[in-house]
């Protein structure tokens, strides 16, 4: 049975696609699934850095597409878990170095050997996007609770539908519950009302993410991080488990005090 190919996309840049790709892959791998991560952001590759595997790159996606090497030679096994492999892309080339049908062939080959193939899509709607979705069966849209990100996500959903990728799932990243409570930030219901797709995860804004991406250590490995917890929950949902959403809103200082004293909020 071939594995499932999922593309992580957003439209908007900087909302957390690469972070989600790395952590989703790592979380699935530590539960025992075999996972291949694919970086399709040719020219602006980041997945290798976020995974901490950049000094292990010898061959990349473009080499495989051009036939300079076999797919197996370009795959890098993760240094922490043997279930996880990374197919990096080239930094010295551009998006048009690969075309959608080459991409599709590579994804199909990976799906034959891995239970999950997770594709990190670049920002935008042009060639890079079209490459990333070639060969994907499912899509996860990442957005932040900002009007511009939601606008771009809506565009992407329309484009995915026109390419035959229906029912994408939604992750809302970098949520700040205090701001939502004050009315300064969109809340999840507002976002769902516009995007009208199934929510698969809400990730709180967490400084630990910045630390982890710089160190190359996916945050799901940090037991204390709330974002890490949220990402692990997302991985479980992707795997078919029903996991209740974390209560991100701890109510603010006053209700926290009330809880301590024993008064009802």
């Amino acid at each position: 049975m071939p594995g499932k190919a999922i593309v992580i996309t957003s439209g908007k840049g900087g909302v957390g696609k690469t972070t989600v790709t790395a952590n989703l892959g790592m979380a699935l791998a530590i539960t025992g699934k075999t996972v291949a991560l694919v970086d399709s952001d040719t020219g602006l590759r980041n997945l290798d850095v976020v995974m901490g595997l950049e000094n292990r790159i010898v061959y990349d996606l473009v080499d495989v597409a051009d036939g300079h090497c076999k797919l197996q030679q370009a795959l890098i096994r993760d240094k922490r878990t043997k279930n996880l492999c990374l197919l990096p892309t080239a930094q010295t080339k551009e998006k048009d170095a690969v075309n959608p049908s080459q991409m599709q062939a590579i994804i199909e080959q990976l799906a034959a050997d891995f239970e999950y193939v997770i594709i990190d899509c670049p920002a935008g709607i042009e060639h890079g996007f079209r490459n990333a979705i070639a060969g994907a069966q499912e899509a996860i849209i990442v957005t932040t609770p900002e009007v511009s990100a939601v606008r771009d996500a809506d565009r992407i959903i329309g484009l995915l539908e026109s390419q035959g990728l229906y029912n994408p799932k939604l992750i809302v990243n970098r949520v700040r519950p205090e701001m939502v409570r004050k009315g300064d930030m969109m809340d999840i219901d507002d976002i769902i009302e516009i995007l009208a797709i199934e929510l698969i995860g809400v990730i709180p804004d967490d400084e630990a993410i910045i630390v982890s991406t710089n160190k190359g250590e996916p945050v799901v490995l940090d037991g204390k991080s709330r974002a890490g917890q949220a990402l692990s929950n997302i991985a479980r949902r992707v795997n078919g488990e029903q996991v209740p959403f974390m209560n991100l809103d701890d109510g603010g200082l006053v209700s926290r005090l009330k809880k301590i004293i024993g008064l009802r909020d």
Partner: protein
Amino acid sequence: MDSRGAVVFKGTRDGIKLLIDEKADFAAIINDLRAKLRESSGFWQGASVSIGSLTRELNDDERSKIADTMREFGLSIASASRREGADGDLADSPAGSSMGSKKTETAEQTLIVRRTMRSGQRVNFDGNVVVLGDVNPGAEIVASGDIIVLGTLRGVAHAGALGNESAIVFGLKLDPTQLRIAFQISRAPDEKVASRPGPELACISEGSIVVKTYSV
């Protein structure tokens, strides 16, 4: 033609047309005409009908024979148009046809979009547009006729795009980025207005676009 016979009464925006099958021989045409008029005699009394032929031209003799037959049953001839292109097929039902030449305001064709329109999607249509879903911000509808959104309109809607100032924009919830009717452009006021529940209708009134609460 088809099983409907050698002649067909068609209701159009400009009144009733009598369309004649060019392939039938003239005797059959007259027979069919008499039969149809007899069937629904009384219904047609006083109606004004224009004669059209699908492809061939009627000569004067034929035309006057048809006119006589019709007068027999109480119809009068409005005008005899020489050649019709194949009209958009309206059902050949008296209920559907407009009696006499009563002009209706709306354009003939209507496009129904059975999904939510997402950012970046665009519909251009010569006619009316009905959306069974939302119109998200960044989506655009441009129609020569009316625009009806059975959902929330958050994008841009341009009704009456060819200059029809009586076109309307209707939405179960109107919250557009911009509304355009004919040559007028309008946007929501800069100060935040409390959102009004319920369906609304936008139209041009006294030279500018106004939005009214819709009630039947």
